[in-house]
């Protein structure tokens, strides 16, 4: 308000006249109703208006008229007066200095009508383009216009004025992008709006960004905008229709950069941000930005960024003094993976990664298992990224698969990660000769490792993961591999691990080979595995020596445990004797797995279970004194579930069960006592009326 008050000294005459123009324009108003482009108000256009009067008129308007409380048409008149004066008396108006700008800011502050906004935006643009003094009011001017961004306007149906949303957008964009002085306010706003959930807000932000006149001062802002942009776009790429948006804008922005600065400079910026930025989020955003830009200008990235990252990766070991050597290396690995979005870049990054992998493997420093895992993760990401692209995929398999394979068999601590990685690839690789060759290669390497030598366990891990990968997709070779696994159950050394492996085969794996990472998983694979392999397990059990029988039972209980219950119920009569035998097995894992398998069956197949009531009661009761808490709890739950069998079957056992369950009531663990209380309470009610 202050500056305007300084110029409040108006002589009376001028004041009287200032109220005149709106009044005298009243006769012209019918034209105002016709639309926004109506005849200009005559007096402000008058050539013979004495010098100084225009200024007095404007001062009076700024001082005396609260424009936003006028009707739309009158506000429109005010804007028209200003427009006309700006057209005819530019010199005089400029004499007012920044007060003119400030006065106008107050006039338009709060304007809501689209017709008026069109004119107001044009005035702001003229203020800037024709070099009116903005003085200290740059931010205010920005605020008073940018508050409409992004434009939210839907023309009413049958609108006679013909103003479209697009008109307002273009008009506002012309204002916001008209001066570098706005850049420092505009860019943060754009970055913020780019994160908007509204597709239209995003689009508008991006377009405005492209039209923003970049200047030296705002280059850093531009770069951070770029990062935010790519991060935000890579998020929205999840919906495929946004992909075109990403491509077109990245290229147009890049073209913009080629005008203003050098593309190589941008890449250098990205490298610096990737490696040395304190904030890891910004660093990651820079990697993602690089990854998004790389397919557009692959040469610059493979020529500049990849060698640089490779160099950092190698030199890192010597810089023991640096504060975060580990995170720097991690970043290099991450960035290499993020960058691998184009075939020609993949050809550069993969050798670097493999070279590093081999170096880490040979090295003996502590923590190199962790490094190994990082490299494998990067390789995994590359694999995911080049799935779309046949050429990249082919190259990847040529280069990476044999190398991983060699490692999976040799390496000790990293075996699991490497095996998982390989399994993920094998699962997704399209069927055909190439896959068969890869698998043959794997089997040829694996089988000798399984038979003897110091790496039998690693070979088994690889066998398990490859088998899982193939079982999931019904690959014909899977039966060969499961037979191999079944054979190992009778192995003194590997038998228990092979038995536990059945759990791995059947369970959902949290990190690889599940639907979430687009693995090829057939929905009936568990049933199919059951049908194919359980007869073999049962047969193997009967033929096995006493010392390895437990392995077959363990494997069986793992398979049954993961099987849908309806399937299990139909197969129950043949399996039940074996399950009961498993309860006598001394292995806690077998006991637990069998108990959790039996408990739902007691509820779902009471008739079949009733036939074995004697054995069930005896086994469950004896397991309630197991040293393992989990087994005691499971046994008590089963004893509880027994009460859902027919009363006639239960009554002969009631007294014995109630007596036996008195003991776990005094168990040292509360969780066991809780189950005992519930089970015993239910057994007391067996045979009572109303139950």
């Amino acid at each position, binding site marked *: 308000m202050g500056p305007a008050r300084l110029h409040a000294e108006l002589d009376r005459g001028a004041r009287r006249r200032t109220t005149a123009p709106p009044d005298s324009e009243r006769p012209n108003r019918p034209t105002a109703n016709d639309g926004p482009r109506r005849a200009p108000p005559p007096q402000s256009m008058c050539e013979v208006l004495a010098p100084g009067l225009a200024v007095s008129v404007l001062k009076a308007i700024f001082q005396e008229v609260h424009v936003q409380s006028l009707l739309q048409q009158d506000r429109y008149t005010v804007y028209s007066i200003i427009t006309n004066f700006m057209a005819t008396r530019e010199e005089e108006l400029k004499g007012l200095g920044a007060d003119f700008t400030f006065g106008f800011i107050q006039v338009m502050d709060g304007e809501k009508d689209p017709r008026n906004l069109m004119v107001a935006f044009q005035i702001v643009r003229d203020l800037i383009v024709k070099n009116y003094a903005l003085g200290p009011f740059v931010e205010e001017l920005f605020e008073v216009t940018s508050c409409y961004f992004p434009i939210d306007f839907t023309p009413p149906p049958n609108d006679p004025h013909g103003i479209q949303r697009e008109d307002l957008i273009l008009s506002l964009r012309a204002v916001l992008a008209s001066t570098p002085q706005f850049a420092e306010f505009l860019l943060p706003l754009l970055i913020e709006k780019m994160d908007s959930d509204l597709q239209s807000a995003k689009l508008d932000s991006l377009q405005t960004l492209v039209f923003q006149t970049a200047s030296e001062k705002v280059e850093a802002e531009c770069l951070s905008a770029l990062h935010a942009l790519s991060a935000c776009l890579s998020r929205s790429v999840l919906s495929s229709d946004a992909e075109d948006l990403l491509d077109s804008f990245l290229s147009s922005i890049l073209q913009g950069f080629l005008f203003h600065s050098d593309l190589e400079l941008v890449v250098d910026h990205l490298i610096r941000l990737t490696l040395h930025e304190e904030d890891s989020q910004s660093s990651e955003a820079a990697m993602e930005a690089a990854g998004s830009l790389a397919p557009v200008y692959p040469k610059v990235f493979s020529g500049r960024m990849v060698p640089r990252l490779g160099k950092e990766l190698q030199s890192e070991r010597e810089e023991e003094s640096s504060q975060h050597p580990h995170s720097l290396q991690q970043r290099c690995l991450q960035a290499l993976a993020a960058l691998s979005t184009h075939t020609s870049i993949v050809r550069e990054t993969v050798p670097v990664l493999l070279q590093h992998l081999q170096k880490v493997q040979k090295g003996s420093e502590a923590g190199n298992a962790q490094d190994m895992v990082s490299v494998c993760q990067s390789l995994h990401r590359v694999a995911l990224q080049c799935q779309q692209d046949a050429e990249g995929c082919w190259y990847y398999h040529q280069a990476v698969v044999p190398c991983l394979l060699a490692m999976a068999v040799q390496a000790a601590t990293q075996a699991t990660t490497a095996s998982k990685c390989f399994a993920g690839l094998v699962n997704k690789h399209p069927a055909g000769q190439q896959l068969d060759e890869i698998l043959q290669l794997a089997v040829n390497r694996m089988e000798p490792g399984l038979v003897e030598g110091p790496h039998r366990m690693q070979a088994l891990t690889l066998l398990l993961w490859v088998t899982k990968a193939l079982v999931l997709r019904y690959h014909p070779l899977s039966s060969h591999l499961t037979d191999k696994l079944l054979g190992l159950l009778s192995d003194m050394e590997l038998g228990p691990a092979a038995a536990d492996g059945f759990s791995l085969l059947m369970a959902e794996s949290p990190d690889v080979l599940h639907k979430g990472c687009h693995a090829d998983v057939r929905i009936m694979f568990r049933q199919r595995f059951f049908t194919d392999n359980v007869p073999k397990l049962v047969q193997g059990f009967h033929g096995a020596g006493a010392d390895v029988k437990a392995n077959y039972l363990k494997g069986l209980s793992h398979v049954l445990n993961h099987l849908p219950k309806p399937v299990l119920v139909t197969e129950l009569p043949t399996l039940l004797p074996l399950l009961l035998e498993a309860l006598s097995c001394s292995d806690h894992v077998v006991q637990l797995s069998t108990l959790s398998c039996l408990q739902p069956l007691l509820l779902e197949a009471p008739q079949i279970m009733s036939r074995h009531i004697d054995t069930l009661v005896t086994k469950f009761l004896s397991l309630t004194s197991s040293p*393992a*808490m989990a087994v005691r709890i499971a046994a008590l739950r089963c004893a509880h579930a027994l009460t859902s069998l027919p009363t006639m079957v239960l009554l002969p056992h*009631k*007294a*014995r069960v*109630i*007596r036996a369950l*008195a003991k776990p*009531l*005094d168990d*040292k*663990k*509360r*969780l066991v*006592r*809780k189950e005992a*209380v519930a089970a*015993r*309470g239910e057994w*007391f009610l067996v045979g009572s009326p109303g139950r």
Partner: protein
Amino acid sequence: MVGPGGGGAPLENANPLIYRRSGERPVTAREEDDELHDSIDDREIFDILPGGRGGRGEGGRQAAVNDAESTVAVEFTPTIPHCSMATLIGLSIKVKLLRSLPERFKMDVHITPGTHASEHAGQVSELISYDSASLCTTNENFSSGST
């Protein structure tokens, strides 16, 4: 007991004190440790009792348990002083405790002093003690195996 619509007679306790149920007892890491010993506490008694899952004093009940001395005392408050179900409630609590606690526990179930009309005459508490003697016999029958 006087129910609504009971010939227009006023309710004896139109607005009884109702206690909120507390949720399932959370399982602590300590309780999952196979090695450690969890002693029986008051909350465990509440979880055993009918309509259980209470905190201290829920449903007008109080319980004090001493695992080391193998004693438990439960005190309950009938909703109205003339509650004819008081004996039955007391016996139910007693039976539930007998079935759910180890045999070593000595149990005492009684009405909160001053909350029941016939309590001063000792009728209800006596009944509970008397009946629980025969209940114990039943329980022992199970223990000795002769149903």
